[in-house]
């Protein structure tokens, strides 16, 4: 049996370290602008959607040792597989834009007094390029290290915020109606769709006993922490939640100790930012892997270079059109994300499993 690139432990830690951080920036205020006090229900819907997708993927991929490229080739041949991968590449590229733009805006608005030049954000693309040159194994290693950073940052942030949250602000539950809850859920699809990452882990990790339960549990721990964050966020800001753009910086500053000691909560925020650096690079990482597969590129620097440069120039161009870009992506392309990240992977695996069963 050949040695796999990932271990189950690393997949568990991957979900703990990287799935929640990118949802702590503009997502809470975006959902709150539509679902108001039911923002946590909208989040819960997306969390359940991703959790169910991972659960079904775990069941459907139980008896296979093939990775996603081999599965697609079995289903639709090499050309068909490459076309599907090209579509995924486009989806991942679009998915990467909003988190990178919001990260750039966050640094621009909260960490700098004046508006610095675009070059200050270049280090992100350098790190991203370096990450893209690595194999899938790098995600496992990063998860092993950075889950501590995510968990520590999150716990400190919550410890500072929870005492100032009025949890009754989320009452009455469901008062805004199912339409608004679903709208909030739909608008936030861009930030979710984490289940798709598991598609790329299939066939790349050593199976162990009860691995499915462990993976699912770690996903839900991370996912429920996002729901908790939403509740605390609305508990603190209630009627002005929709305009608190960067909840990560806003949520913890009302502690009395901060008045005398200064913003020491930035230690926790910076820990989360470190994890988020990898989290927002993930779509581009998978873009470069897909590009390698589509064009059978062997040189490990070519795809990362293309992907990173494309991302950099797109971000530079979109700097003047942030609002309209966000509007288009969250209101129109959300449905495409739902199909590609939650529905299609299940269809591929279901058909593959049936075909395998028929053959055997």
């Amino acid at each position, binding site marked *: 049996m050949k040695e796999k690139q990932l271990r189950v432990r690393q997949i568990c830690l991957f979900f703990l370290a990287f799935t929640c951080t990118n949802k702590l920036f503009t997502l809470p205020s975006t959902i709150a602008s539509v679902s108001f006090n039911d923002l946590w229900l909208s989040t819960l819907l997306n969390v359940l959607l991703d959790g169910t997708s991972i659960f079904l993927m775990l069941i459907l991929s139980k008896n296979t040792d093939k990775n996603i490229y081999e599965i697609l080739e079995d289903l639709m041949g090499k050309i068909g597989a490459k076309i599907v991968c090209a579509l995924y590449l486009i989806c991942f590229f679009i998915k990467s834009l909003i988190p990178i733009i919001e990260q750039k805006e966050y640094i621009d608005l*909260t960490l700098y007094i004046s508006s610095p*030049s675009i070059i200050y954000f270049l280090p992100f693309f350098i790190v991203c390029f370096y990450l893209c040159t690595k194999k899938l194994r790098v995600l496992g290693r990063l998860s092993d290290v950075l889950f501590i950073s995510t968990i520590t940052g999150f716990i400190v942030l919550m410890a500072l915020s929870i005492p100032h949250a009025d949890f009754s602000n989320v009452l009455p539950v469901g008062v805004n109606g199912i339409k608004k809850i679903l709208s909030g859920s739909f608008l936030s699809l861009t930030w979710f769709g984490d289940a798709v990452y598991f598609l790329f882990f299939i066939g790349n990790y050593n199976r162990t006993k009860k691995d499915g339960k462990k993976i699912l549990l770690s996903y839900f721990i991370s996912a429920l922490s996002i729901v908790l964050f939403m509740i605390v966020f609305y508990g603190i800001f209630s*009627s002005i939640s929709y*305009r608190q753009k960067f909840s990560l910086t*806003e949520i913890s500053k009302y502690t009395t100790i901060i008045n005398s000691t200064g913003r020491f909560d930035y230690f926790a925020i910076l820990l989360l930012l470190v994890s988020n650096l990898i989290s927002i690079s993930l779509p581009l990482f998978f873009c470069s892997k897909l590009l390698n597969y589509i064009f059978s590129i062997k040189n490990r620097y070519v795809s990362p270079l293309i992907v990173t440069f494309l991302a950099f120039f797109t971000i530079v161009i979109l700097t003047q059109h942030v609002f309209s870009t966000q509007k288009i992506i969250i209101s129109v392309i959300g449905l495409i994300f739902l199909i590609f990240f939650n529905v299609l992977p299940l269809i591929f695996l279901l058909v593959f499993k049936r075909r395998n069963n028929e053959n055997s």
Partner: protein
Amino acid sequence: MKTLKTKILIVLIFAVFIFFFSNDFGLVDIDKTAIIVALAVDKGEEYPFEVTAEIAVPEATDQNSETKNAQVTGKGNTIGEAIKEVSDLTGWFPQLNFCNLIMISDELASDNVIKILNYFAVTFRVQDSCLIAMSEGSAKKVLEDSSPLDDIASFAIQKILLKQPGFDKNVLDNNVKDFCVSYYNPASSSYMPIITRNTVEESSSRATNSSSESGQGDSSTNKSGNSGDKKIVFSARKTALFKNGIKTGELSEEQTLAYKILNYNVKSTVYPVKKENVLVSENQNFLITILKNSAKISVKPYQNQLNLDINVKIFCKLSDSSSNRIDSSVSKNTPLPQEVKEAFRKKLTDEIYSLIDTSVNSNCDIFNIERRLYKFHHKDYLRFKDNYLSAVVPNVTVNISGQK
């Protein structure tokens, strides 16, 4: 090894390239930065807003280690424009991250103050945890006062607004965020403390601290200009009530304290029980220290009325009394005399009822009745949402206990 060296060299060249062309990552030179510690907003004559920035000028020399301050006033049609003028006049970049106090003149409270506060709530340049207060008279004048203890008036005011554990919690402080949260709720009711300047005559040339009339230590003494004997005493025990951002009423010092008891932990706060409330013959005035307080406020909708049930429990001890003889109960924390308990209960109950009256009369929902109805009795919310304050029937129960 050779490849590793080349890699390191490339990374270093790249790093130097970034540092060289990044313009110090957009950081502003500290010499060109004005650290604004407080802002005073007044009504202007030419323009709607006059913003006075209190700027801290750090001086680290062997001779003088005190922090000096300067006030610069900018005018504008918006708050942002007025702050920009401060920058234009001084040539300094206004650094607002350390601004911990925004003072609004009472002249501006006749119009919607959210026009002022919205700028601070939305911009990332000011922390929205910044304290807000309303000044009696010119806000600029308040910032111009300098204290013998601290040259910066805003620091003296912050001391009376933000009470550390152990201090009396008799000031109803508020910040930009909380004011905006209340404003943007359907009830649109909020409050902020009123800063009053009282001139007191003193014979000594340099006083450290002086207390206001009741002597409860919640005021700060300041020197007014260069007149050696005239001192300015700041007080913040009164509270202004706002409906739709416009000032509609005021809470007295006693009502403010009663509101604090209902909504916050006021451990160590003292409560005076005066002569007329006490039934005992000898001891006339008492000072009670609250050791523990809890209050349950609930709204119950009925056919045509809203019952506002307030249940307060206080555990306290006697701290002082104007007695002809030394009373051992003060030092030994012995049980509270029944008459004192009764006097305290009656006084606090009356204050709470008057607090509710003020809230109804000023149309300011400081008890969050609208929100309580919305959250916990949503079915009845639509029935009462337009006239909930007039439908309120209060029922106050106060339980006083002490050492048993």
